[in-house]
């Protein structure tokens, strides 16, 4: 079994407390992970400035180049992991075994991460809106239009409390090292794999290991990370989002409540858009915040729901190694049943129809784990409770709603895909502050363009744009 230590600025630390990461089907331990305590992390944070100092010895261009090399390491090579090693195939198997995600999805997420590492130049160009990168490194400089600008780093490191069940989110923190900030990660209890593998890949390409800290542990480690890092990310439930939503030091990523809106002008052609709708609901096992949980249309909603149900309803769980497997397991005993109870309650409400009922039971309950087969519901009105729900499996409500009410009734929406050519409505959607990422046209909600910022621009989070004035003489020396 692999023994995985806490990593304190590159130095392995074996804790007296360890937690097993186990195979969700058999319960067999795969790895034993040392558990940090909150104080340990808080204490190490006193040396956080050194992480940035070390990274600033490299230019951003050099770090970008190394990130691309790290992409190859991450995606293809056998890398050190704790007291052993892990090949790329083992990574996929381990991640699938501990998270319940099919191997094909793990591999897709792996490719997504390496894509971001490999294309860092374009991603940073986009995130910075074309700023010269040495300006970020130095903190000030001259833009091409001849104006002095300053971007002041607000922290030396980015902290992140990572999830256990969504290995797709790691792309969000990958640009941090090329931007010369250290990383302090609390890996998810059943998904330590990505954080450790990225750290190993970075080390392999010459990035100082002292720039990264890995602190697996309990809730106290998460709290300690959030209170001791001046900038951090957390991934969690709606409750987590509410808890940290007013904290400028924390970027919180929770449920997405992503939606598709069909406009009056296009809804009669709904059959043309079924494929992107199905993809939006089903991809990645329905686990992502970018999966669609609501489809709003002014009419034809029953037909739309029936058509989606026809495609998703018959889907059954398959072995994780099956390339066709599309459902992810709930790996904690009882969770699938508990989620199903909540869904069932909503499905029984007035004005709600369970369109997948005819395709057999949804809950597949096994001794150690469970699956929920896709659920497609129809709601007569956006006021039905189910219209504002999102679950960690392929679940969608097709909601009957007049176009004029859609923006207001949709509520918070991470990705909104509006299928319309009505320019007046497009303008209203563009102005809608409850929609974060807006797609115009039949674009599946999961089809993210990596050259667009996601849920807040990382540059805005890590830097503060501020006034900076110098004399003409000193400017000449730049």
């Amino acid at each position, binding site marked *: 079994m692999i023994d995985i230590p806490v990593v304190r600025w590159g130095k392995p630390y074996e*804790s*007296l*407390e360890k937690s097993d990461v186990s195979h969700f089907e058999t319960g067999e331990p795969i790895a034993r992970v040392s*558990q940090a*305590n*909150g*104080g*340990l992390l*808080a*204490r190490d944070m*006193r040396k956080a400035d050194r992480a940035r100092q070390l990274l600033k010895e490299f230019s951003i261009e050099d770090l970008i180049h190394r990130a691309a090399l790290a992409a190859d390491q991450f995606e293809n090579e056998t890398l050190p992991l704790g007291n052993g090693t892990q090949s790329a195939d083992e990574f996929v198997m381990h991640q699938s075994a501990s998270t319940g995600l099919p191997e094909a999805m793990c591999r897709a997420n792996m490719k997504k991460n390496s894509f971001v590492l490999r294309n860092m130049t374009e991603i940073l160009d986009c995130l910075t809106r074309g700023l010269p990168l040495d300006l970020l490194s130095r903190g000030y400089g001259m833009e091409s239009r001849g104006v002095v600008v300053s971007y002041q780093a607000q922290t030396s490191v980015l902290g992140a409390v990572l999830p256990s069940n969504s290995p797709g989110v790691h792309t969000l923190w990958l640009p941090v090292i090329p931007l010369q900030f250290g990383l302090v990660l609390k890996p998810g209890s059943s998904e330590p794999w990505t954080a450790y593998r990225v750290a190993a890949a970075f080390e392999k390409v010459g990035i100082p290991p002292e720039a990264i800290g890995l602190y697996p542990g309990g809730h*106290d480690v998460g*709290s300690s990370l*959030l*209170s001791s890092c001046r900038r951090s990310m957390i991934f969690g439930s709606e409750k987590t989002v*509410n*808890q940290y939503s007013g*904290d400028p030091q924390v970027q919180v990523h929770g449920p997405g409540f992503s939606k598709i809106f069909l406009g009056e002008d296009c809804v009669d052609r709904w059959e043309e858009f079924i494929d992107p709708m199905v993809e939006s609901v089903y991809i990645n096992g329905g686990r992502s915040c970018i999966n669609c949980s609501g489809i709003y249309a002014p009419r034809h909603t029953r037909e739309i729901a029936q058509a989606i149900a026809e495609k998703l309803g018959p889907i059954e769980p398959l072995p994780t190694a099956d390339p066709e497997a599309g459902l992810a397991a709930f790996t904690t005993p009882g969770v699938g049943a508990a989620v199903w109870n909540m869904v069932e309650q909503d499905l029984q409400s007035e004005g709600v129809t369970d369109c997948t009922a005819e395709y057999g039971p949804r809950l597949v309950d096994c001794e150690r784990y469970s699956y929920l087969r896709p659920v497609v519901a129809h709601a007569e009105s956006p006021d039905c409770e189910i219209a504002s729900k999102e679950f960690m499996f392929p679940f969608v409500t097709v909601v009957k709603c007049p176009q004029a009410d859609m923006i207001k009734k949709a509520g918070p929406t991470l990705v909104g895909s509006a299928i319309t050519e009505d320019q007046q409505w497009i303008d209203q959607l563009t102005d809608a502050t409850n929609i974060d990422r807006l797609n115009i046209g039949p674009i599946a909600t999961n089809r993210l363009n990596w050259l667009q910022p996601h849920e807040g621009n990382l540059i805005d989070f890590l830097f503060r744009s501020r006034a900076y004035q110098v004399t003409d003489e000193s400017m000449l020396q730049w």
Partner: protein
Amino acid sequence: MTQSNDLDAVARQARDRLDQHTYEMVQRHFHESTGCPFWLQKKSELDFDPLTEVKGFDDLKKFPLFEDEWLRGGPVERWRMKDMSDQPTYVFETGGTTGIPKSRVVVDDFRTDYEVFSDTLPDEYFPRGSNWLMLGPSGPRRLRLAVEHLAQYRGGICFCIDLDPRWVVKLIKKGWMEHLEAYKNHCIDQAVTVLTAGHDIKCMFATPKLLDSLCLALEDRGTSLAEVGVKGVFSGGTEFTPQWTRYAVEELLGGPASEGGVYMTPTYGNTLMGLACSKPVTAEEDYKISYYAPQPRAVTEVVAFEDPNTLVGYGETGRVKLTTLTPEFFVPGFLERDEGEREAPFDLYPWDGVSGVRPFHELASSTTVGVY
């Protein structure tokens, strides 16, 4: 005689003493001339006569398990022993973040408990006559007065910081983490001020979280607990894990006391019990923490999850069961909200102990621990 025979003999003596003490305490609590109204009333509901049928510790199994809910609400006088009702009496509360707290009336128990505990403290690290700092929950809690008495009993004076744990729990439940941090800093600032004000404080009590924060705050000011003169700390709480202890010893307290670091001893206790002491914690034993109750005044047992009258084997896991047998308070078997492993007697404490104490797994998710 072998060492094992020696231990068997002292363990037998301790057991005899416990049986005798149990008999005496039951006589006291159930006699009309001495008992408190609560137990005298309960006696009438029992299907046995405690005065004639409880002769030793094992006979306490005849009682139903103690329910701490019985301690909630008034009149608090129902817990006053008849022969002590004219003596100055304290009430100490536990819980109470929402709803009515549980209360225990006390005349001398807290003093006696901490005097017994005092005898376990090494004078080298808790020098007699030196002053103390109490950095933990105050207000209606027993701890503040108890630590103050400990300091006085050892010839010192105790400085206290005011800390309201009920407010801390509310802050956490409301998610007001910024306020939580501010309140913690408010307490730590006061502690640093007292420690650096020339009061010659050499000993202290602190909860693990506050000790951690205090050490970091001192470090921020370019000093340390050892440098400000503290030699010994006692601390308590279920978050006192071997890993936390190791972290504290290695990174907060300047290394093991034998190598010049500040001495720290973990304790386990609550308002119902006295204070269980720890077997000396060492790196050689991976900082394993084993607690031993102050028998015969209190007894901790590790019992089967499904049968609270059956002890688990040594090294096996079970629920912590507490029995309190003082002249003022009688608790004939209370299932704590903790679990752990049963530990064997040893020369210093020749009776059962408990190690690896942690929240009982069936209650763990609903319990807020280690908040201050």
